[in-house]
């Protein structure tokens, strides 16, 4: 059987690797971005000079040959679902028995005046980083529009070259659509400490160019003009599915799939950033645009294709990110406000760079989720506690077991317990200070 996969990102490649583990099928991966799989999440580090492109490739180049995964560096122009074939941009035709669509995203833009000027761009692909390299050469001021995860990465990238950054966000606090106010304002302060000018409650109205068609300033919705030679648009991403028009594959925002990652066509599947669940479960987004979910979907899909049909089940939700120097890990469903019937315990270190939050059900006291900023926490531990609906008091008693900070780091356990006992005297717990010997 010949399996063709469009897209060599984490979704496509993980599918290919797992199919190879499970079977002897012929596998062909087609992609037009780079010849080999690389880590998209590391794009910022290429720009900042922490790594070169080759360091972001998780497998050495001989790996693909050895595992009989054929690679084709080409762009798919069209899918002819009924005939079970693809047309490449250069006209070549490729046939398949089964097709996997894993084409990822493209950056979202809006119809702002001036959006096509030189120096205005999003950040998603390797080509975008190369373009950013060119667009930011010898510039002094940049504007970033949109306060999500890619926006703050872009800000960090530009700051690594001492470019003045104006960061325009719609909300009052950074990523407040997801982060609760306390965490979000902690990050606001950290952004300021990095000399990034955060313009809160601000939206872009228009981009102005100079006589050469290069951006020279932006104007915000309240009429303020900010001079700049670069505009980064990071207001989100859209599924990359334009080439599927007229293919008879059903799409909405993304390629529509069921919980088995099947499209409306038998033998055609989709997953990762480009796919959209027809019936997302409660609280799940319909389009999952994460590295982790792409990987987990791919493991399921490989099983499905190799005959062991099972529904995609992503388990207790988790995610992580880094806001400049502050690491962020989250487990369970954590939004900017506790869900109905839930309460929230929050502790913050006096220096304002470390924090943790635990949400729990008001009646049963079962924990439902965690946020950690500036401290590392064991995923397995958090996962088990949430799954087993462990009561908050027990969690507090055991919290230290989940700490994952390196050795000798300041241990915040007692401080957290102290705050907990003050906030919830009726649940107060007592912990003894344990002595730890350095040797043995």
């Amino acid at each position, binding site marked *: 059987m010949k399996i063709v996969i469009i897209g060599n990102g984490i979704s496509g490649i993980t599918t290919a690797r797992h199919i190879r583990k499970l079977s002897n099928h012929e596998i062909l991966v087609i992609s037009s971005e780079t010849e080999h799989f690389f880590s998209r999440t590391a794009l910022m580090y290429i720009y*900042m*000079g922490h790594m*070169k492109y080759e360091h972001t490739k*998780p497998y050495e180049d001989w790996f693909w040959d050895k595992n009989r995964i054929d690679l084709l560096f080409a762009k798919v122009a069209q899918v002819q679902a009924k005939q079970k074939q693809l047309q490449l941009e250069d006209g070549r035709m490729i046939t398949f028995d089964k097709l996997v669509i894993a084409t990822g995203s493209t950056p979202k833009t809006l119809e702002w005046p001036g959006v096509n000027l030189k120096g205005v761009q999003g950040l998603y692909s390797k080509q975008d980083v190369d373009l950013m390299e060119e667009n930011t050469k010898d510039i002094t001021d940049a504007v970033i529009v949109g306060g999500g995860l890619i926006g703050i990465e872009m800000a960090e990238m530009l700051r690594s070259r*001492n470019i003045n950054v104006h960061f325009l966000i719609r909300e009052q606090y950074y990523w407040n659509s997801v982060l609760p106010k306390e965490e979000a304002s902690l990050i606001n302060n*950290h952004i300021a400490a990095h000399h990034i000018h955060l313009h809160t409650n601000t939206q872009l109205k228009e981009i102005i160019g100079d006589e050469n068609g290069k951006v020279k300033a932006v104007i915000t919705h309240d009429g303020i003009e900010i001079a700049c030679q670069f505009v980064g648009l990071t207001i989100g991403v859209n599924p990359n599915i334009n080439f599927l028009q007229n293919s008879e594959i059903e799409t909405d925002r993304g390629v529509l799939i069921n919980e088995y990652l099947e499209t409306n066509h038998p033998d055609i599947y989709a997953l990762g950033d480009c796919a959209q669940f027809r019936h997302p479960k409660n609280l799940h987004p319909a389009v999952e645009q994460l590295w982790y979910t792409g*990987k987990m979907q791919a493991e399921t899909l490989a099983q499905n294709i190799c005959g062991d049909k099972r529904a995609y089940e992503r388990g207790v939700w*988790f995610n992580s990110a880094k806001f400049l120097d502050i690491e962020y*890990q989250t487990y369970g469903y954590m939004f900017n406000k506790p869900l109905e019937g839930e309460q929230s315990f929050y502790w913050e270190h006096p220096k304002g760079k470390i924090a943790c939050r635990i949400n729990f059900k008001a009646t049963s006291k079962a924990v439902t989720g965690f946020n950690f900023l500036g401290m590392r926490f064991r995923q397995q531990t958090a996962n088990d506690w949430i799954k087993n609906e462990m009561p908050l008091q027990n969690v507090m008693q055991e919290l230290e077991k989940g700490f994952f900070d*390196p050795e000798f780091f300041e241990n915040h356990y007692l401080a957290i317990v102290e705050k907990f006992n003050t906030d919830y005297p009726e649940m107060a717990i007592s912990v003894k200070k344990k002595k730890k010997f350095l040797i043995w």
Partner: protein
Amino acid sequence: MSKDISLAVTDGSGANKLQKTGIALLAFGVLATIIAAFGAGATQPVLFFWLSVGFISAGTLVYAYPYFQHEAGIKNNNIFKNGMTNRGALAWFTGLVLTGFYIILYWFPQYLEGLIRMCDPLSWLLRNKAADQWFLYGTLYTLAVLVMGFRFIGKYRHNRYQIIRTLSVMFFQLGFAFVLPGLLLMFNQPEFYFSYFWPLKYGYLWPNDINYVVSSGGLGYFMIFWGAIMTFIATPLLTYKYGKRWYCSWVCGCGGLAETMGDPYRQLSDKSLKAWKIERYTVHGVLVFIIITTIMLWLNSAWEGGLLGTWSGNFSQWYGFFIGSIFSGVIGTGFYPIFGNRVWCRFGCPMAAILGLFQRFKSKFRITTNGGQCISCGNCSTYCEMGIDVRAYAQKGENIIRASCVGCGVCSAVCPRGVLNLENLRDEK
């Protein structure tokens, strides 16, 4: 200075001014050293000692100071855009200078006369005897560990493991590998390094050295006893409990230099599978060779020269020449800017080989990974000085138990998702 060869941690801004000042001071120190080498060091030792040591140290410290001004956190900006840390022209030049220095030091010390004389006052003070080329070397070595240790602490100051570990290597280099051996000489005792053991300091279990040390009486016996205990009892025990790191990145002088002066070059280690294969042959090859040599020397000495005859001396000399000098010095340190900072530790050190075997098969130390959090970014693998492809394990959620891991903890420090943690598993209770 063009961007490509600029040495700056960051471009532009006030920090850069400080770094330029640092480079100017450094250049002045180097100039003073060159003048001293051409003879001025012999006529004006004190003056030139302070001029060169003082300005080189001050320059490096000023250069490193911006690390303390930034927000604490990983600062690897521009490492691969800077020729000095990315095998550019400046790196080759530095490698050449370092290699040249080793060659002159080992085989043509007469050309270092000016510099050696410059160290006389310190040598008299510490050891009550005139300086020689090895004292010069020890002084520079210790200085490099201390000054670049300061830089390292600035760079990784968000991470207490790194701070404490670096203070430890600075302490052991200064105290155990520089001051203490000097004081021993002052009191007419054998020169002995309490922080080095067989098989790295192979002589410490060879008949000749033992005879020399023991001939000094009481303290000599203690030294032999100490060496044997460290090699045969403490090493396995400590490695069982903490892994190889208790030595390689906390105590050892070679490791100390690699971690401090070598830190700017850690990303240059080869991560390919091929390099790993070569490493396993060479490092264990050296170990086997030294074990055989040690056994032969003892048999020979028991037979009173019957086994090897005049060969015994040759044998140890050749080992000293090829492994001790060329491998650990010229290639191991001289090529820092080209092959990375742990070439010797990874491909050649017999001590690392033994510790590695314990670590791989009988140790509680491992690097654990935090579930499915890895985003395969590659920072850990890139900055692993031992060339371990840490990411290959992390992205599968596997723990890392590798013979070569020196437990420097940098993979854990640079990981942007908090995936990696160095742990000594506790005994089940």
